[in-house]
């Protein structure tokens, strides 16, 4: 027991020490006077701004707005992406119709369509959510498609042989076998949703963390804008961790994706 606690502490220290080094360098630069303390406020000021804005509810409000948008778009993309991916993998004419769209559209920066989305859906949340959903659908659908296609046919044959219907085959054979691949698609898509939400909020908006940061730095409240950066970092990090936890729960038979966080691939 003691051993386990000790090793957990050691692991945490190993993760935290690079961050501590960076913080120390920051503090040194800020206090030394080489850099204007207005551009690089000492950490103490940043954290007092962070706590002040949490206490008066402003930061929580903007975080809530951004988080809701990112998660709504991501949730939509999960549903649409998995359905499209499964259909592409299982239905031939569907594959013919949609596979070229996904393989040609993948490297295209979809964010460029944001003005079109504004024209179609207005400046509010819906255009942002739609753009997030569009951007996130691509990695999810592509990973689902490849995951389902890679299921060995003999699994399907033996299930059929033992009298399983299409629904049972889908839920008991295809979905579990493709789940690791689907999960890595989700893992690519989730940080993307935060990127898109922040970008779109920086362009003409009056709520959300992207707005908060650009407003704070436009009004020279740099400590507040760093507080906003920290809030975004925390939200992004915690969302990713939550997804890894869910993944490890669902995929208890696969080694954890937590450690090699990020063997990301298309």
């Amino acid at each position, binding site marked *: 027991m003691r051993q386990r606690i000790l090793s957990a502490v050691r692991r945490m220290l190993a993760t935290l020490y690079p961050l501590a080094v960076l913080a120390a360098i920051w503090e040194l630069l800020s206090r030394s006077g080489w850099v204007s303390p207005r551009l690089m406020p000492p950490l103490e000021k940043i954290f007092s701004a962070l706590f002040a804005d949490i206490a008066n509810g402003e930061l929580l409000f903007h975080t809530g707005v951004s988080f809701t948008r990112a998660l709504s778009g991501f949730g939509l993309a999960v549903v649409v992406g998995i359905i499209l991916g499964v259909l592409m993998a299982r239905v031939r004419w569907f594959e013919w119709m949609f596979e070229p769209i996904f393989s040609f559209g993948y*490297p*295209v920066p979809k964010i460029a369509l944001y003005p079109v989305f504004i024209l179609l859906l207005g400046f509010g949340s819906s255009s942002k959510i739609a753009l997030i959903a569009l951007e996130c659908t691509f990695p999810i659908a592509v990973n689902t498609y490849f995951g389902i296609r890679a299921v060995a046919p003999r699994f399907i044959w033996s299930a059929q042989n033992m009298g399983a219907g299409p629904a049972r085959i889908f839920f008991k054979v295809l979905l579990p076998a493709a789940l690791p691949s689907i999960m890595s698609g989700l893992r690519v898509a989730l940080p993307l949703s*935060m990127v898109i939400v922040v970008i779109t909020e920086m362009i003409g908006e009056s709520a959300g963390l992207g707005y908060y940061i650009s407003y704070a730095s436009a009004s020279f409240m740099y400590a507040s804008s760093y507080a906003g950066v920290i809030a975004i970092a925390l939200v992004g990090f915690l969302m*990713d961790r939550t997804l890894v936890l869910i993944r490890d729960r669902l995929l208890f038979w696969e080694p954890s994706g937590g450690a090699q966080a*990020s063997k990301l691939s298309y």
Partner: protein
Amino acid sequence: MMARQFGFTALRWAAGLTLPVALLVAMQLTAGQEGMPRYVVAPTDIAATLWQLLTNGDLVGDALGSISRSYSGFVLGAVFGVAIGLLSAVWRQAQAFFDPLVSTLYPVPKIALLPVIITWLGFGDVSKIVLISLAVFFPTFINTLYGARSTPVNLVWAARNMGANRFYIFWHVVLPAALPQIFTGLRSGLALSFVVLFATEMVGSHNGLGDMIIRAEEAMRYDWMYAAILTIGLLGFLSDRALLVIRRKLLANKYPGEARRT
């Protein structure tokens, strides 16, 4: 047999083209009609505008500005990502520092630093390039590190057994083994570089395709807007294809099977 094969392929192409063509036809037919919003522009008008902007050079300056920024940032981020990734793979101290740092900050959207970097470096190209290279660095570093660390240990032993020194092993065993995954990282980085480029140009810029899209939208010149969107989409797509060609060239004699996979 031949004829059937041909019919099959034709059917496949037709199916693939159905949705894009349907969208274009719908836009062509409804554009300019009573009650349709002005932002529905006929594809033929967009094509004409695109041609005109290309020939009179209006688009070329913006496109060149965007491309030079995005490629500078990409190359900078890629060089640092590969170099530090390889360093971390062979030197434990470097890995102990960079690996937890990058893994922790990976899911954090680096674009949040845009306003901050603008206050440091101003609205010019430097702040855009720095932000793009930062975004490219992360996926490149992680994929390089894990690619190099997953070098089959048998190969390293075999090389050592035959008297190879550390430098030789690094250059001829570890690097080739890491190359496929390095390219995976570069590809994610390239896609990100265009997203970040567009964001930086939309927020504060007087040049570039992102800026042009915003200007055209504000001026309600929707044909210009679509032309610029098409250009940025095409540039992203072609850059990706170019990277895949380089990858195939580099990997062809090492991984005959790997190179063919895209």
